[in-house]
């Protein structure tokens, strides 16, 4: 099976700060892969480097067999799309949902925009009643659904998810996670998902990589994690933390 995303020795340097220190990774086509770590671990930077939003100092990124240069072309964005963490910041404040969804179609010259927008809204469970609302007329969960619809409307094969539910309430999080699983199954998407929450990553992903301080700590399968078969202390710490507070007295 070919790799959807192959990353080799990736370094990202902001000014003089090394955010990623030679990380390698392979995500198989159709797989859901998780990146786990705390703030400053470089997990989001890795995602942004793939999307072309972070300065790559060295190393290579290959997407669907094509090696990426410093600039991404339009064809790349039809393969790879991203959903951001903050649903309040990722939608333009002066545009209706309709306008937000039309933009990618206009950029890529799709003719059947009307139909696609309808379909995209239906797919994320919003329906046409939401089509002409501004983002301030939507709740956090609805905004994130719009962001997902926007990412899907170009029919990409790879979706980059940057903590897509961390700003949402638990009950809304469940709905959005279910939606993501459903679209992945239906469209046979490849997911690369970033989260600080081990439980979410084990729920969503088959394999995962634990990161710390810009480096990979450990590669695991979800099953290994569930069985607590981890080798690194750091991963064990994260696992313990995910089980809630334990009083030591």
């Amino acid at each position, binding site marked *: 099976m070919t790799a959807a995303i192959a990353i080799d020795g990736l370094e990202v340097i902001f000014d003089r700060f090394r955010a990623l220190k030679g990380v390698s990774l392979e995500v198989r086509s159709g797989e859901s892969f998780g990146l786990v770590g705390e703030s400053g671990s470089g997990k989001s930077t890795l995602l942004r480097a793939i999307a072309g939003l972070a300065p790559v100092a060295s190393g290579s990124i290959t997407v669907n067999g094509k090696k990426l240069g410093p600039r991404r072309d339009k064809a790349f964005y039809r393969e790879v799309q991203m959903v951001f963490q903050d649903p309040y910041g990722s939608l333009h404040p002066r545009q209706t949902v309709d306008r937000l969804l039309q933009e990618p179609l206009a950029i890529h010259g799709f003719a059947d925009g009307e139909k696609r927008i309808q379909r995209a809204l239906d797919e994320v469970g919003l329906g046409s009643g939401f089509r002409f609302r501004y983002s301030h007329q939507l709740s956090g969960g609805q905004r994130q659904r719009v962001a997902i619809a926007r990412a899907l409307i170009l029919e990409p094969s790879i979706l980059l998810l940057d903590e897509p539910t961390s700003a949402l309430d638990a009950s809304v999080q*469940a709905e959005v996670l279910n939606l993501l699983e459903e679209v992945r199954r239906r469209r046979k998407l490849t997911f690369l998902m970033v989260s600080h929450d081990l439980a979410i990553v084990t729920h969503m992903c088959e394999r995962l990589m634990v990161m710390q301080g810009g480096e990979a700590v450990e590669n695991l399968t979800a099953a290994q994690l569930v069985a607590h078969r981890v080798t690194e202390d750091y991963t064990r710490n994260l696992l313990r933390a995910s089980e*809630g507070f334990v009083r030591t007295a």
Partner: protein
Amino acid sequence: MSGGPNQQRSMSALLDVDDLRVTFPTRSGLIEAVRGVSFSLGRERLGIVGESGSGKSQTGRAIMGLTPPQARISANKLAFDGIDLLAVSPRERRALRGKRIAMILQDPKYSLDPVMSIGRQIVETLRTHEKVGKAEARDRALAMLEAVQIRDPARVFDLHPHEVSGGMGQRAMIAMMLIAGPEMMIADEPTSALDVTVQLDVLGILDRLVSERGMGLIFISHDLRLVSSFCDRVIVMYAGKVVEQLKASELGRAQHPYTRGLLNCMPRIGFERHPLPVLDRKPEWAA
């Protein structure tokens, strides 16, 4: 969840809240953020859990007297240690705040003064509430920093808030809030901005200090699981009302469908459920 040693819990209530209401006037009419909340707090750890818009934070703010001025607060009773909080003068209220009641907010970045060193902020807090000399205040501040497990208190004392990490900032915040020896503390999402591993350290510190000093703690959070592992008792809020009050240890036997839904919908390691159960919100919950 654990059965730690039972705290010396006095039965007289530290805080009494009866039918608390907080209303905000807006362009489109009145919005009731809190709609008749009643509970009492002893020297225990009480968790208030709810999702955004449930009124949990506004409840905490109303007790602290930090509600925005345009809002209206009413209650049959809002008393701290027998003092009617709605009747006292703003001055007395300020004196209570910090001295006897303390509050920790989510992000230390916004609640610490950015241009004053951490040590000085703690010293100032102490000296506004107690008559102590400079040298003594400094010693007590250093001791307090040590109590929140800051390894090198003398160094951190001279640092400014932007020079420390989020976890360190939150510890400094706790130190500042506890220096005057309050009897009650309100912690509004105190660890939500922190990394998970740091989160547990901070909670551990908070837990130890609260039980050592026999304080009453109100822990406000969206995370039902975290709250139930930390608190003795949990209040679940929905749409400005209390839908359920129960002992943390009996969370598994929660009655209200909202509480159960909230517990169920979070993914857990080792419990595969695809799709996750979602909340089916009933209008009568908010009624």
